């Protein structure tokens, strides 16, 4: 690697570098004894995110080559939604001071002094996603994924001073480590099959191997891909790595759950896109079949289990699984096979990028509503707690309604456009059956989403429920819900962004064969 290249590459990473710096600052200020400095950490985090977002945006404008495509988009989206998450997570580290827990009061509690560190972890995890998006190398990808995950373990563990939080942390961490080992093994096999960890090189070698093998991939590579994909499924909470989801989501503090629902999922989805682009679309039939099954099973499993829950957090957790299934549909479809000149529909990758935002807004808004409520000094979690929300807190009820409707995919909310996008791409790639599975699953999911809406609007209020009184969470919920509406109605900008993010693929689609396309795409990202 030439020196100039390295400089250029680092130049593309300025936002991440800045985020790291921000995280470090938070970490250190968080250690200070005074309350004042500790309280400034969320603001530092916010400023860091905003500046990072601007840096990303700036690079998007000026240096299209360096940061063109997906990475830029993902970084921007993560920074943006990170801001909403920041609002929603406000108050989490202070929570201990609000609750009276005899056991906790007696002893030393690390959670009590977490204020600063929490935001450091928050920023670190987001940085991980950003780095994932910019990954051009298996090593990098592995590190970035781990950077995304490791802070979240801490966040979960320390978010609440309750047994549930610790239980969810232990499950999350151990199972996460297991999955990391699995996809790491996959990475190793890919490396073994190609002799390189650099995406561009791998792509070229894969192409060559395919040409030699008569369109077939070497078994080692296939196995590596399989393990990688299945391992990364943990991050997006897809079958068979979905087991932890509901328990972890339930145990973690609600705002942290919102974080978990969006951030690692984004990282995982992006990682999957990168991994599969190594072999290009249409995917090798084995991988395609595997993901087909995973997608179908994931969405079905998520939805049917969601139906059975009484805890809204668990419901949303299972819905998170289901949405991962939908995302996998886009992954199967891949970048437009026969993309229309006039429109973005048909590009599965762009659909995923869009859907991540759509899903993120919806799910963050609904978790934020839950986070705004407390019941008997605990978190509001069950249907009973949100019952009659409309009468006491009409604003929260409206946000909840909008967010679940967006998640259902009711037009014209942003979730609907996401579905249009996914289904359009699935049809374009010929996955008709999967579309039917998808729409039927949407119908199933409507049942539990509707139960949430129904509880909010038709139920009788529960006296034990009161507002947590944390203003930023309200703001976060509001922003997410409003965005869900606004992006649904004037979603063209976002759609265009996703389209531009994958435009390199599109322009080459007519002339080059598909793996070459993917390679070109990746080259653009990683130059």
């Amino acid at each position, binding site marked *: 690697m030439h020196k100039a290249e390295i400089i250029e590459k680092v130049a593309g990473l300025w936002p991440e570098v800045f985020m790291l710096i921000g995280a470090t600052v938070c970490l250190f200020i968080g250690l200070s004894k005074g309350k004042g400095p500790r309280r400034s950490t969320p603001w530092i985090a916010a400023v860091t995110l905003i500046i990072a977002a601007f840096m990303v945006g700036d690079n998007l404008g000026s240096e299209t080559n360096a940061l063109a495509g997906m990475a830029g988009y993902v970084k921007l989206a993560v920074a943006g939604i990170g801001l909403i998450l920041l609002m929603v997570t406000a108050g989490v580290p202070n929570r201990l001071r609000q609750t009276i827990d005899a056991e906790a009061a007696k*002893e030393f509690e*690390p959670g009590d002094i977490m204020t600063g560190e929490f935001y450091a972890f928050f920023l670190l995890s987001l940085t991980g996603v950003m780095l994932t998006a910019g990954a051009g190398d*298996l*090593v990098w990808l*592995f*590190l970035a994924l*781990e950077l995304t995950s*490791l802070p979240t*373990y*801490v966040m979960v*563990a320390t978010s609440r001073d309750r*047994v*549930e939080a*610790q*239980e*969810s*942390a*232990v*499950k999350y*961490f*151990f199972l996460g*480590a*297991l999955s*990391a*080992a*699995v996809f*790491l*093994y996959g*990475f*190793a*096999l890919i*490396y*073994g099959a190609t*002799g*390189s*960890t*650099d995406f561009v090189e791998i792509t070229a070698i894969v192409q060559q191997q395919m040409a030699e093998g008569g369109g077939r991939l070497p078994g080692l590579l296939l196995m590596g891909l399989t393990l990688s994909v299945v391992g990364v499924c943990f991050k997006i909470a897809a079958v068979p790595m979905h087991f932890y989801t*509901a*328990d972890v989501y*339930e*145990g973690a503090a609600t705002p942290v759950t919102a974080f978990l629902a969006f951030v690692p999922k984004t990282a995982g989805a992006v990682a999957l896109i990168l991994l599969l682009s190594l072999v290009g679309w249409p995917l090798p039939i084995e991988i395609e079949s595997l993901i087909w099954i995973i997608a179908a099973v994931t969405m079905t499993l998520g939805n049917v289990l969601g139906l*059975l*829950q009484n805890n809204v957090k*668990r419901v949303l957790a299972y819905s998170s699984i289901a949405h991962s299934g939908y995302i996998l549909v886009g992954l199967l479809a891949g970048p437009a096979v026969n993309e229309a000149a006039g429109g973005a529909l048909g590009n599965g990758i762009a659909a995923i990028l869009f859907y991540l935002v759509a899903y993120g807004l919806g799910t963050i808004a609904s978790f934020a509503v839950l986070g705004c409520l407390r019941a008997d000094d605990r978190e509001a979690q069950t249907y009973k707690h949100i019952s009659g929300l409309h009468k006491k807190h009409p604003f929260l009820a409206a946000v909840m309604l909008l967010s679940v409707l967006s998640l259902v995919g009711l037009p014209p909310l942003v979730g609907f456009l996401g579905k249009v996008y996914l289904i359009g791409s699935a049809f374009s790639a010929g996955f008709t059956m999967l579309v039917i599975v998808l729409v039927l699953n949407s119908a199933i999911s409507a049942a539990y989403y509707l139960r949430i809406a129904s509880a909010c609007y038709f139920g009788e209020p529960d006296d034990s429920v009161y507002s947590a009184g944390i203003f930023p969470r309200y703001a976060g919920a509001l922003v997410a819900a409003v965005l869900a509406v606004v992006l649904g109605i004037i979603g063209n900008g976002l759609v265009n962004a996703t389209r531009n993010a994958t435009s390199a693929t599109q322009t080459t689609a007519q002339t080059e064969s598909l793996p070459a396309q993917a390679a070109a795409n990746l080259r653009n990202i990683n130059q």
Partner: protein
Amino acid sequence: MPETVMDSLTLSHFLMTGAVLFCLGLIGFITRRNLIIMFLCTEMMFQGVAVSLVAFSRFHLNDTGQTFVIFVLTIAAAEAALALGLVVLLFRRKRTLDALVWSQLSG
């Protein structure tokens, strides 16, 4: 003498070693209930991968794999730190390292 041994060891031997390590880790993870041992099992899986990586690195005659291993070790160390912190936290709460006590959340 050592050379002959090395000669008779092919790539697949190393890969098998890695795979066995990995699988042992997997099995250990499922069968053991002590949190620390479970964590060690995941470490074993990492090491199994590391063995494979080094073997591949050697096979392909480049050092990318070995570089990778360095990073894997780093991550493993980070995870270990985290794991120990977590285990301490958990032990303080329940006074046991049995993983099965952490199964209140279900359904």
